[in-house]
């Protein structure tokens, strides 16, 4: 259902530079259109290993699309996305030319990326433990025992060691989202994508989810890319904040620079609008 | 041995078409009664008077979970014992009408349930009599959205008319069987009857879909 559409036009594969440390994720000239609407407009973005990047910006600016194309939930029209030095939506053929990726290549590269959704998307017919075990068993081929150990460990890490047998419908929104985080982590991704993970939650439940993400950032050298409306959290947690506007990164910098000293008019407008709202 | 004898098919076509008129007539008559009777059943089922709503609910459930064939046998073979002689055709039409009235009643019920509560509150506030309220306010709103569902039951009725061959009604299926037993060729007549139903029900389904689309637009 989500087979990404790929087009071969306007590819600009840049020669790799082995002498330099490679970014873990690289967007180069990525464009994504929905009919007339251009959601990503020649986007360039590089994310280093272990970096925590927050993406902020007005609704409809294409922030979520950025995560969704990286997760291959949607295809791109132009440009290249590389994960861990490998093109995501394309692959080199026998002669080294880039051609649209086949399912196998897509699955291999996609395995390095994990995602947590705004609406949790837990499997309603499985309990918390089964939700976390399912993909490691079915996709990675782990034995039930190994998968169970891994799942119990992760569910303990997100503070749900006493909810293993609970079904999603029996958990609060915050608890469901923590199961979803454990489920994504069980695949041992190199990059974790968080798509407005607290937006569907009641305010009093946001904290428990953000705490889990915070702990995750401290304990592991995991690369994280998050789209968020929680400015406070972005400021405190992220290494870098990107302000996204009209399909591009309009301004980026350290949280301190961006929040206290925005250079761009648009950024200032957005931040003051957000401040007023709170 | 030829597969399908076109010559023979052409010969029997007039006889089949002749019987198809009976089929279509039964379906239309049954449908017309079912559409009216179903509405009364639906309103009766919603009534606050338990002596009315309970038996109707029971009757609808009973008829919906028992076979049309036995119901038709019942009408055709039992009633004459009590002095009510129905011809096969009459018993067949009444049987189909009664059976499908219980289905259309459920369609109407869904339509009536979909009318917002506030409309009922409005007619109460205006002090309308229940009958006036139904006729002028509630039904016009409830009926329009259920028209496609009713259309689908016309298709079902059409496909159920061959059941009446069991009580000697000579509709298209019975005619095909007769042709088969006279000529010992079953392939052509039965296949042709199948095609007759297929074409009619696909055509009607297309009309129902157009009706649905038009009503989507009208909203």
């Amino acid at each position, binding site marked *: *259902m*989500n087979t990404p559409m790929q087009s071969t036009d306007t590819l600009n594969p840049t020669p790799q530079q082995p002498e330099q440390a490679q970014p873990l994720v690289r967007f180069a000239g990525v464009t994504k259109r929905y009919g007339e609407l251009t959601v990503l407009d020649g986007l360039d973005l590089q994310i280093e290993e272990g970096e925590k990047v927050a993406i902020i910006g007005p609704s409809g600016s294409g922030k979520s699309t950025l995560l969704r194309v990286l*997760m291959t*939930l949607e295809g791109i029209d132009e440009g290249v996305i590389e994960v861990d030095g490998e093109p995501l939506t394309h692959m080199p053929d026998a002669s080294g030319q880039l051609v649209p990726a086949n399912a196998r290549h897509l699955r291999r590269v*996609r*395995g390095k990326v994990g*995602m947590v*959704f705004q*609406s*949790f*998307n837990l*499997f*309603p*017919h499985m*309990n918390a433990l089964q939700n976390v075990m*399912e*993909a490691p068993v*079915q*996709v990675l081929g782990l034995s039930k025992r190994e998968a169970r150990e891994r799942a119990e460990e992760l569910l303990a890490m997100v503070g749900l060691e006493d909810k293993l047998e*609970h*079904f*999603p*419908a*029996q958990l609060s929104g915050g608890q*469901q989202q923590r199961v979803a985080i454990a489920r994504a982590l069980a*695949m041992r991704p190199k990059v974790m994508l968080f798509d407005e993970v607290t937006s569907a939650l009641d305010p009093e439940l946001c904290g428990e989810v953000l705490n889990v993400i915070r702990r995750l950032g401290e304990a592991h050298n995991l690369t994280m890319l998050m789209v968020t409306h929680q400015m406070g959290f972005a400021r405190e947690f992220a290494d870098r904040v990107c302000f996204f506007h009209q399909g591009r990164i309009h301004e980026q910098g350290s949280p301190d620079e961006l929040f206290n000293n925005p250079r761009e008019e648009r950024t200032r407008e957005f931040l003051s609008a957000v401040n007023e709202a709170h | *041995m030829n*597969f399908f004898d076109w010559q023979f098919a052409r010969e029997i076509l007039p006889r089949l078409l002749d019987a198809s008129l009976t089929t279509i007539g039964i379906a239309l008559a049954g449908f017309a009664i079912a559409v009216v009777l179903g509405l009364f059943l639906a309103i009766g089922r919603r009534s606050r008077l338990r002596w009315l709503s309970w038996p109707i609910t029971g009757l609808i459930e*009973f008829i919906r*979970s*028992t*076979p049309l*064939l*036995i119901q038709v*046998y*019942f009408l055709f*073979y*039992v009633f004459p*014992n009590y002095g009510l002689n129905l011809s096969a055709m009459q018993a067949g039409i009444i049987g189909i009408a009664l059976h499908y009235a219980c289905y259309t009643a459920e369609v109407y019920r869904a339509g009536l349930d979909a009318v917002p509560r506030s409309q009922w509150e409005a007619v109460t506030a205006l002090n309308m009599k229940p009958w006036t309220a139904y006729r002028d306010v509630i039904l016009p709103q409830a009926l329009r959205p259920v028209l496609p569902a009713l259309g689908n039951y016309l298709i079902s009725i059409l*496909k*159920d*008319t*061959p*059941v009446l*061959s*069991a009580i000697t009604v000579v509709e298209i*299926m019975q005619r*095909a*069987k007769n042709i*088969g037993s006279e000529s010992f060729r*079953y*392939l052509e007549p*039965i*296949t042709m009857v*199948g*095609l007759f*139903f*297929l074409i009619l*029900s*696909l055509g009607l389904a297309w009309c129902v879909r157009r009706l649905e689309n038009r009503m989507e637009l009208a909203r």
Partner: protein
Amino acid sequence: MIELLPLLLQGAWVTVKVTFFGSLLAIAYALIAALARLSPVAPLRWLAITYIEVFRGSSLLVQLFWLYFVLPMPPFNVEMSAFAVAVVGLGLNIGAYGAEVLRGAIRSVHQGQHEACQALNMTPLTRMRRIILPQALLAAIPPGTNLLIELLKNTSLVSLITLSDLAFRARQLDQATLMTMEIFGLALVIYFVLAQAINFGMRQLERRLARGRMRGGLS
């Protein structure tokens, strides 16, 4: 009246057997046809659409007659017992309706479930087998129950191809004893009880499958 019961129950047992095996076949056909209908391979889709439309569009009795009278003749020369025709015919017919029910249920599974599967890198097959189908099957139980009751009711038509089911026995007893009212009344009651048994069984099944996942709705 008591002396009627053993024979009627004998017939009812045949009805139960036809219903049971017919249901198994119908579920299998429905599953295969629904998956083929949603397949990315165009010829598979066309095949599924043809099967679904033909068996929904031409009348069941025509299909039974076709299997019973036409299939044993040249050029097919496939002879089946009346029981086999009943099971296969009802299975094919209700399976076509079931395919549409199942297709609707599969498509009703939330898009987020597909996205979650892709984010977890599942193959399309694993996704369908482990995540989508289990949810779709649960959603298909209520409309599926109605179809199974349709199947039960339609088993009465197999009496017209000489299988001695409940309807057949009723008709036979009627001719022998002339206790028309009692016989057809009893037959209707037996069908009603069987339908309620299906209702009850499916509700139990739904409750068991839904264990834990209903409260708060599906997310």
